[in-house]
């Protein structure tokens, strides 16, 4: 699988570039998810945040998500880029683009990808609040051991 479809990078993410990777003659629908840094989480103000990754493994896990998508939606083509390092409010942390011949599949496969990222991709977020900082985890109450294939 082409490395440029799945990447973990310190560089800014470009929505157009990543979406264009999956546009093709056979596809009529592309759904792109852009995850940005939100200022408030449950009333608490984020000043900035940092993403760390186990870079080489994280790329492999993104590729794995691409493979899982193709098992479920054989006509889909996906590209997933995740940024690491220090991010400000509204900066783009992740871009997921999925193209399919018909639109229902593009929405479903895209949503599948972001759920899986939050389960299996070794990337961690450290929130910088006004009154301290904290490594975020267990968003999905992940438990110890090999991650489940299905939610």
């Amino acid at each position, binding site marked *: 699988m082409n490395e440029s479809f799945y990447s973990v990078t310190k560089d800014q993410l470009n929505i157009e570039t990543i979406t264009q990777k999956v546009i093709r003659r056979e596809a009529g629908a592309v759904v792109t998810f852009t995850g940005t840094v939100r200022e408030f989480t449950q009333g608490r103000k984020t000043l900035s945040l940092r993403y760390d990754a186990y870079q080489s493994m994280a790329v*492999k896990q993104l590729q794995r998500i691409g493979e899982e998508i193709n098992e479920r939606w054989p006509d889909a083509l996906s590209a997933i880029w995740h940024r690491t390092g220090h991010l400000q409010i509204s900066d783009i942390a992740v871009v997921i683009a999925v193209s399919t011949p018909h639109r229902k599949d593009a929405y479903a496969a895209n949503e599948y990808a972001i759920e899986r*990222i939050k389960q*299996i991709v070794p990337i961690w977020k450290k929130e910088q609040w006004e009154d301290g900082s904290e490594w975020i*985890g267990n968003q999905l109450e992940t438990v110890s051991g090999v991650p489940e294939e299905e939610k």
Partner: protein
Amino acid sequence: MITVKCFAHLEEQIGSHTLEFSYKEKTVEALLDELQITYSINLDSIMVAVNEEYADQKTIIQDGDILALIPPVSGG
């Protein structure tokens, strides 16, 4: 020799990104038990990768393996 990579809060708690140990045959589970005692850390909700693939706690570590302690992830 085996290498253990630490991330996020574990890296801060252990005080190092990379640990190296001389090789002795054992399971992932046994290694986790040792690390919990040595560093006074809680590894209950930690996943483990061996050579960049998630591994079961019963996996037997091979000489030269690169392990990673993977706290609950929070990308996306």
